[in-house]
């Protein structure tokens, strides 16, 4: 296995003096090719801030982040924007899609941004959307799609340009249980199949059943790291105790 993502002693500090907040405090982690990792924790634990830094959207106060061997923290803003466009795939919690582009065009957008849109890649867009169960929905605009369908379009967009790493922020936030499972299951399948590295920020522990590793964050630091299986077992025990 080769390492795709490597974060070393990443720290993010907001404010100064009395009001100083260590949103992320000395976090190191690696994600390998073909590995799907969940970043979980209560709100305020620093998981979204961590994701923003891993995505090159936010500069760490200290520490280094390498994706595919390239140092994100050393890049200029313009270079980092370009890098995000071809090396990273994104799925967000809200405002995921461009409202004036239909499902197919939203996915093709990533190829357009990278100058890779051609007959072959267009065919791949179609195949991927079919695979995600959106064969009949390719010409629909985001406003005409359900939350789950929109999330699946976003997943297609996150993967279509063959990025090294895929980042998903709360992909199941607005979905019911059944859809949430469908979406994350397919996502995990594709990450494993295509050999990408994947990180999902979620507060929904049930989704951990599809990931290889669960990284718990609390107060800006990494707590326990367990396997997806262990996380689920723990959850089951908690439910049992509660009832």
């Amino acid at each position, binding site marked *: 296995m080769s390492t795709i993502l490597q974060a070393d002693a990443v720290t993010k500090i907001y404010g100064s003096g009395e009001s100083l907040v260590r949103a992320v405090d000395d976090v190191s982690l690696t994600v390998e090719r073909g590995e799907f990792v969940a970043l979980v924790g209560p709100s305020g634990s620093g998981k*979204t*801030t961590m*994701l*923003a830094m891993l*995505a090159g*959207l*936010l500069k760490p106060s200290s520490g280094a982040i390498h994706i595919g061997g390239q140092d994100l923290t050393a890049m200029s803003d*313009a270079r980092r*924007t*370009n*890098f*995000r*466009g*071809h090396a*990273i795939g*994104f799925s*967000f*919690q*809200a*405002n*995921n899609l*461009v*409202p*004036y*582009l239909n499902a197919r*065009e939203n996915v093709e*957008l*990533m190829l*357009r*941004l*990278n100058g890779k849109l051609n007959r072959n890649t267009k065919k791949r867009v179609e195949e991927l959307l079919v695979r995600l169960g959106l064969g009949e929905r390719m010409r629909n*605009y985001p406003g005409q799609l359900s939350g789950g369908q929109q999330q699946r379009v976003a997943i297609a*967009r996150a993967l279509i340009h063959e990025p090294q790493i895929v980042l998903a*922020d709360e992909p199941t936030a607005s979905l019911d249980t059944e859809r949430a499972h469908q979406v994350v299951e397919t996502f995990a399948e594709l990450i494993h199949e295509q050999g990408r590295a994947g990180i999902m920020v979620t507060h929904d522990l049930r989704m951990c059943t599809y990931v290889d590793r669960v990284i718990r964050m609390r107060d800006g630091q990494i707590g326990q790291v367990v396997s997806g299986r262990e996380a689920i077992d723990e959850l089951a025990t908690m439910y049992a105790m509660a009832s």
Partner: protein
Amino acid sequence: MSIYLAFKEIWHSKGRFLLIALIVALITTLVLFIAALAEGLGNGNRELIQKLNGELVIYQENVKLSIAGSRIGRSTLNSIRRVDGVADAGQLFFSDATMVFADGQDELDISLIGAEPGRPGEPAVVAGSQLGRSSSNEVIVDGNVAARRGVQVGDTVTIKVTQGTSEELYQLAVVGVTDGRQYFIRPSLIVPYLTWEKIRPQGENETNSGELISNIVVAKLTNPADWQRMAQKIEVEVGKVEAVDRVTAYEATPGYSAQQSTLDTQRYFTFFIGILVIGGFFQIQTLQKVAQIGMLKAIGASNLVIGLAAVTQIVAVNAFGVAIGAIGSLLLGASFPPGIPIVFTGDAVAAAIGALMLIGPLGGLVSIYALLKIEPLTALGLAQ
């Protein structure tokens, strides 16, 4: 990429963009009509003087360049003609009269102008011939009269003037038609000066020294480029006269400058309103798109792509609106009957369209700046 995004969005929100284009179209119509009105009214005041076939217009001294107040006699004309560098000069006589029509058409107020046949001041005809003898009952009619009332070369026209307490009618033979020569918002009839002297309106007991008194003299120079020096030279050598170029002369027409600057002010205000309206529209649109733009930047769209897309939209909507407005205005203008002082000239229309094309980019500056400032971090619901 930018163009793709720009037009995809316009197409998806056709109604909204059409609305703003229509506002631009209305602003365009307003600006063009104000320009055309300025031109039309301006023409009505200045045409005759602007088109005089001499470089200098000479007034009596100390009359503030008022044609009505200026008196220049035959002897002064002769002094002007003797000034070295003056190729020729002619007297121009102004009064009002009314044209009457036998066929039931409404009467038409005109400027009755006396000119010396073959001398500066007599307009060149576009149809028919120039005036003949100085005392013939001939007339050259303004193109506006020809257009509005169907007067042609060979017709006889009747004019009504008040002399003393009675109204007198005179028949004049139309020998020529000239182009537009309005003065004081009235079309002109140009008659030989001796005929003018005979038929002009006059009081019961007007004093007449026996000398033919005109209002102004038009001088043609041997070297037109030298008009500034010649104006001074004439003033010095002839004495008690004031010589100016044609532009100064028509700008001194009572009310002309005030009218033009009023219309200019309206035009500038309309431009300004246009800039604010477009600016407001795109700024509101930008504020509504913050999350979406943040997402686009997060997934790798550069500021260049985002900025160019916005500029493309603004320019396209602006151009579309101006085009609709311009075509609409010209069609509407063409449907107006002659006599309404709306005149579209190529230069004025081109200048207005050029300026109108800038209202979008100027108005959009704020929103483009705002777009470039959006952080990609907003895609994750975080703010820097």
